[in-house]
């Protein structure tokens, strides 16, 4: 009854949450294997063909950050970190280290599965080396060849910087992008200490694409972490 071929490693030390995650994966038709410690996870990673990693940040033996660092030395596999609500700093750090997304406990299975799908899709897109020429999210459409943006089929005038920002989001639909990452991608340098310039750029862009910038439909803020282009 498997709908997916992906093999997911669930690293979580709490048995109830592990069961819950496994159940959610099972109903969706994912194949999975579990580990309750960092050591066990690393062992499984080298012996099994893992496609995606669900990693709890609060493991008893190894710091989750270390695991991410180790994996990123040899693999680009999608990593989704699971954390408690007061671990915002760690979340952002994990993303900067190369994790693809994060989930905050408690999360719903819908949320979990959506994040997994986004991460997988994104991973395959990278492998398939070509981004489609046109991407549509809701009423917002970007044409990479013509370098044009449309909102509800009407052309939208954006500045070159806004276009750059928007295209970055469209290449990472559904994925959270950290402030640090965006700054680096748009301005090319490590601007991490000065996020105000990005905030201002984002505010300008939102006023063009959102009906109510404080109730965004497209680019939502993940406070303390970054932004995400929502595809729902």
């Amino acid at each position, binding site marked *: 009854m498997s709908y997916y071929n992906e093999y997911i490693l669930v690293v979580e030390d709490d048995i109830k949450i592990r*069961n819950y995650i496994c*159940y959610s994966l099972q109903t969706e038709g994912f194949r999975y294997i579990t580990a309750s410690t960092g050591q066990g996870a690393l062992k499984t990673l080298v012996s099994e063909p893992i496609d995606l990693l669900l990693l709890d940040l609060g493991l008893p033996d190894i710091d989750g950050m270390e695991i991410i660092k180790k994996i990123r030395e040899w693999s680009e596999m999608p990593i989704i970190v699971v954390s408690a609500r007061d671990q915002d700093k760690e979340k952002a750090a994990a993303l900067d280290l190369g994790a693809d997304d994060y989930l905050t406990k*408690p999360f719903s299975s819908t949320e979990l599965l959506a994040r997994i799908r986004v991460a997988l899709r994104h991973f395959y897109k990278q492998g398939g080396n070509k981004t489609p020429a046109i991407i549509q999210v809701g009423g917002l459409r970007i044409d990479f060849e013509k370098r044009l943006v449309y909102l509800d089929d009407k052309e939208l005038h954006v500045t070159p910087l806004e276009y750059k920002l928007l295209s970055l989001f469209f290449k990472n639909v559904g994925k959270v992008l950290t402030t640090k990452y965006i700054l680096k991608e748009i301005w090319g340098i490590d601007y991490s200490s000065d996020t105000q310039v990005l*905030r201002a750029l984002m505010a300008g862009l939102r006023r063009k694409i959102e009906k109510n910038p*404080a109730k965004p439909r497209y680019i*939502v*803020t993940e406070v*303390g972490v970054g932004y995400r282009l929502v595809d729902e």
Partner: protein
Amino acid sequence: MGEINNNQAIDAGHQNRNRKDTLYCLFIMMILLISGTAIGFVFRTVEFPETNIVLVYLLAVLLTARMTHGYIFGFLACVIATGAFNFFFAEPYLAFSVEASNYIVTFVVMTITALITSTLTSYGKQKTIEANKREAETKALYSLTHRLSGAADMDDIASIAISTISDIMSTQAACLCFDEHGMPMSTFIQQVSSEKQIRRDYTDTPDIKCQIQKINTGYIKGVEFYDWPIYGSETILGIIRIPKERAETMNESQMRLLKTMIESIALAMDRYWSINHRIRTNEEIMRERYRGNLLRAISHDLRTPLSGIIGTAEMLMHMIQRNDTLYSLAEDIYKEALWLHSLVENILNLTRLQDGKLVISKDMEAVEEVVGSAVGHILRRYPEREIEVSVPDEFLMVPMDAKLIEQVLINLLENAVKHTLPEQEISVSVTEDKRNDCVVFTVADRGEGIDPVDLPNIFQMFYTSNLKHADSHYGIGLGLAICDAIIKAHGGSIVARNRTDGQGAMVIFKLPMEMNQNELL
């Protein structure tokens, strides 16, 4: 009884000493005069002029005045010397003659000299005695203060006090301490001998406090004791009790010494209580911290199983058909667990805030992003609700800890959701108050509003309206308490009130636009 005998003995000793003294003075005077007379005879034999004999007598009188107490012996010596000179050395010899008026002059001069000398000597002696006495008092006071400074507790202070007072006054002083509420204790300590102190039940005066308030002489006359209150800086700290017999014979200077001693006892007692008070306050702080830690530890441990319960309940909901009655049961578990989880998160944040461990790290943040994120959070949790959001067209950056302000907005919105029906409007609006240089956030609803009785207490921790929702455990207290703590930590203000444009409640909080000077660093 013992002390009465003792007192009599002291009096008897006094009289004895006086008599001996008088005899001694008389003896001295006689010796000096006889010696003077003897020398006079020697002078006459060798035929020295009479004046020399007068000078010898004058010397004898002078020495008498110097070596005896009081004026009386000097005067007496003067009279006797004049008589003796007249009798032995003035013609006719061995008889008194009043003819020679020139002897009158001798007599007057000798008398005046004797008087002046004795006056000066007595005065000098008096001074010495006074100085000695003062020195003794100073010593006693010093030793009292010194010993008191090493006292460990009230009993210690009392014990040192009475032993010193008993020593100086040669009596059996006692001390009754008052407790920290200013009430007399049930027992008092008395010095019964130089080595021994006993504890006695205090039964004499039940209304001692009233009596103390009425006194004007400085002490209370009791049956067995006279009681001197020890006045502290705020209350009465105790009483010093001097046995009645001794107290009645106390003179002015002893009274003064006692008062001074009581003052230094009061200082020591005051110091003891204030140290005690400080220790107690510290203990309380420690206890408070311990309680916070406990609360935090419990909350922390609750979080993980709660996540499990939430997940499991969600699993159940997926397994059960929506129209099944079991579905609503699973949904209830899910919702309650979700609520409990947010409570636990709030407790965690609150304990961290109160502990000063949750460091507020202010950054310039876009208001619309924080509001948007909080609203998005609520809409994800309550997809059936509508929330009106309005922010200024102008892009606003405000210094804040975005995560915490988001938490405030989430708490306020959650409250609004809880206290309104699904069709009732909830709104969030942000405006800039340029005049006061701050940004005003308003979360308003069209629910039943806040009971005016609750309004003053609404931001207190664990305050839950007990008038309404008596059956509901959804406390409003903690969520608002943490909002209050967060906003205050930001240097802002928060108020709750009912809407004036119809029914509903609103919570308004303001954040300053500018960072403080010290926050810029």
